[in-house]
């Protein structure tokens, strides 16, 4: 009727028009599944693909340069995003449903979740001939619902590193690197206590403290499950006896001052390298950093609980193709080169040693000079054994994102002194709620 209504209406209409133009309610376009109407061509197309990952751009550039020697007509534009932002940036980018990125770094345990969300292109047919190339665990990680969604470019395992001087000062014999002499967590705890008494700042340090990747073997070694059971692994199983016991042990490490509070996963390597930590559980990526260490160090196999199973963490990154990629063939060629050719072009060319996902790649990997020293040689044997025998993949469920976050917080609370049973109960009920939408 009057001016103010006109003014209000004008702005309202402007708003609605804007909203309508780019709706966030329903949107078209779902990821496609299983169409074989494209294949990896024999001759390379000329194309440009965008790749999104968390690793440093300079390091990846060397890999891309090597790729371009084999495939000169495909240009690769790599964008690096900090690790803790990768998932949300990915959500936003894929949500835009344009061709950027074509290929992205996918954390292996998240692959079922990302595939279920429709982020990825089904590549079962295109990579059917290559499935024999990889180790079983990495291969399985890329599969979900009977289809293949990602190709592994790296794998991982864990070792027990020790500081020779601190172990000797504690009066303990140096641990053996032989598989048959694998120590138990109980032994390690005692040794850590001895070391702290003898003056070490930290007795035992976990590389990826409070993360599921690192702590998964603890309850599993006691006979517990990976954290979920039932159909599609969507029933939480973190309150069983093994889980509670494992967390009690873990919480006591901090309560008794054997492990430091406040050292984050990003800082753990630096902490060990200062020489103040007696024992550290960390992956092979610590080895090149140790070449500059100012103290003598050694390696031993990953411990297990007495009377329990021997299990080790595993898994790393894979490459997946966006469901909305507009350069499928080129993207597939890049992915294939990174994960299959030359034993995995990525692992073969990345400056810092990355454990490859294939036996052929591993052979080359063990030739690297980081394994030249005596300790390095022993490390190589351990790595080889663990990846082939004791590796257990993380919980492969559609609800993995929620699981990792919730259980990570529970671990953190336990480390900070929360009652383990209560923390796990609370995590379990949070998981129930979070997973309800998937069942």
């Amino acid at each position, binding site marked *: 009727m009057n001016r*103010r209504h006109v003014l209000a209406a004008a702005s309202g209409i402007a708003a609605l028009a804007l909203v309508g133009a780019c709706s*966030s309610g329903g949107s078209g376009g779902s990821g496609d599944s299983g169409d074989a109407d494209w294949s990896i061509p024999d001759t390379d197309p000329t194309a440009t693909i965008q790749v999104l990952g968390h690793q440093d751009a300079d390091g990846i550039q060397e890999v891309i340069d090597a790729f371009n020697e084999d495939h000169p007509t495909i240009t690769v534009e790599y964008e690096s995003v900090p690790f803790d932002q990768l998932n949300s940036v990915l959500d936003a980018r894929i949500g835009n449903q344009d061709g950027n990125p074509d290929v992205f770094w996918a954390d292996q345990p998240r692959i079922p979740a990302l595939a279920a969300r429709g982020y990825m292109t089904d590549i079962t047919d295109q990579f059917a001939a290559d499935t024999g190339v990889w180790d079983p665990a990495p291969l399985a990680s890329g599969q979900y619902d009977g289809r293949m969604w990602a190709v592994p470019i790296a794998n991982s395992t864990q070792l027990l590193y020790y500081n020779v001087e601190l172990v000797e000062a504690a009066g303990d014999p140096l641990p053996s690197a032989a598989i048959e002499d694998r120590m138990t967590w109980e032994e390690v705890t005692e040794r850590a206590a001895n070391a702290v008494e003898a003056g070490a700042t930290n007795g035992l340090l976990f590389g990826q403290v409070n993360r599921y990747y690192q702590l998964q073997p603890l309850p599993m070694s006691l006979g517990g499950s990976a954290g979920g059971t039932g159909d599609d692994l969507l029933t939480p199983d973190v309150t069983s006896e093994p889980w509670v016991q494992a967390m009690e042990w873990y919480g006591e490490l901090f309560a008794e001052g054997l492990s430091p509070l406040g050292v984050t996963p990003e*800082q753990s390597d630096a902490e060990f390298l200062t020489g103040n930590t007696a024992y550290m559980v960390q992956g092979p990526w610590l080895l090149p950093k140790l070449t500059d260490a100012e103290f003598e160090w050694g390696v031993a196999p990953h411990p297990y609980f007495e009377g329990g199973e021997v299990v080790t963490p595993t898994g790393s990154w894979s490459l997946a193709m966006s469901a909305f990629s507009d350069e499928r063939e080129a993207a597939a060629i890049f992915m294939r080169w990174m994960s299959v050719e030359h034993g995995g072009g990525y692992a073969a060319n990345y400056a810092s040693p990355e454990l490859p996902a294939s036996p052929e790649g591993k052979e080359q990997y063990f030739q690297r000079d980081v394994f030249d020293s005596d300790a390095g040689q022993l490390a190589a044997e351990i790595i080889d054994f663990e990846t082939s025998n004791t590796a257990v993949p993380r919980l492969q469920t559609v609800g993995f994102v929620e699981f990792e976050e919730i259980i990570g917080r529970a671990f953190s609370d336990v480390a900070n002194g929360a009652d383990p049973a209560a923390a796990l109960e609370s995590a379990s009920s949070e998981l129930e709620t979070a997973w309800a939408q998937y069942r």
Partner: protein
Amino acid sequence: MTAVRRRTRSERRSILLTALAVVVAALFILPALWLLSGSLRPSNEIFGTLSPVTWRTLVPSEVSLGNYLALLSGPFGRSILISFAVCFLTVAIGLVVSALAAYALSVLRFRGRGAVFAFVVISFMVPFEAIAIPLSQLFSGWGLTNTLLGLVLPGIGNGLAIFNLRQHFLSIPTSYREAATVDGAAEPRVLWSVYLPLGGAALANSALLIFLGQWSAYLWPLLVVSDSSLQVAPVALARTFGEYTFDFGQNFAGAIVLSVVPALMMFVLQRFFGGLEIASGEK
């Protein structure tokens, strides 16, 4: 003979209350002093003097600008420039928008002016965080993520700036405007030649409000910028805090740098425009 007049009780300065004031002021300023001193010494010295608390905790053994140099030559230095760029752009655009709106809502007359005033100010006073998430999704659809414009736009509407400017415009005698319109000036001319020159303090206040709002923005840049070379200072600082907890010295230096800018602004504006009458502000 002059009588000596004794000061009455109420005129004497209270020693007790002064002491109390000193204690209160000390409680507030000591952490800031610790922050300042920490920024001027190497990190391991901060670490070493955390506990027990001695005079060493507050006083550096030697003052060095190393933390500042290291911090500013790294990515944080760039983010400070980005923050400045964003804030100045926001103030420039925001003042225009606010002054225009304030003028219309105070000088021009039309039916429903009061309702529009309420609508405008309330809309902009809703804290930004509340709608940041859906807005960032819209911005993503509009292609404004990782852009300077995307960082600037949400800050241009500040309800209190408009409120302040309107109050000030209302206090300017309308005879000035009458004189100008009689001379044939159109409204924009009146605004430009009459109201704005008279609006010094109010404009400064509003500029300060807009600047401060943008300077400490955290959630919005976090949502809208993923490219670390385009990130603003508070987010960049928070990110290094997670990574380099060992390097407290640089973190402290960053906090000081972030605080000095608003402090300087307030000080300068106070000098030039007299008592800052900040009616309120976003924190």
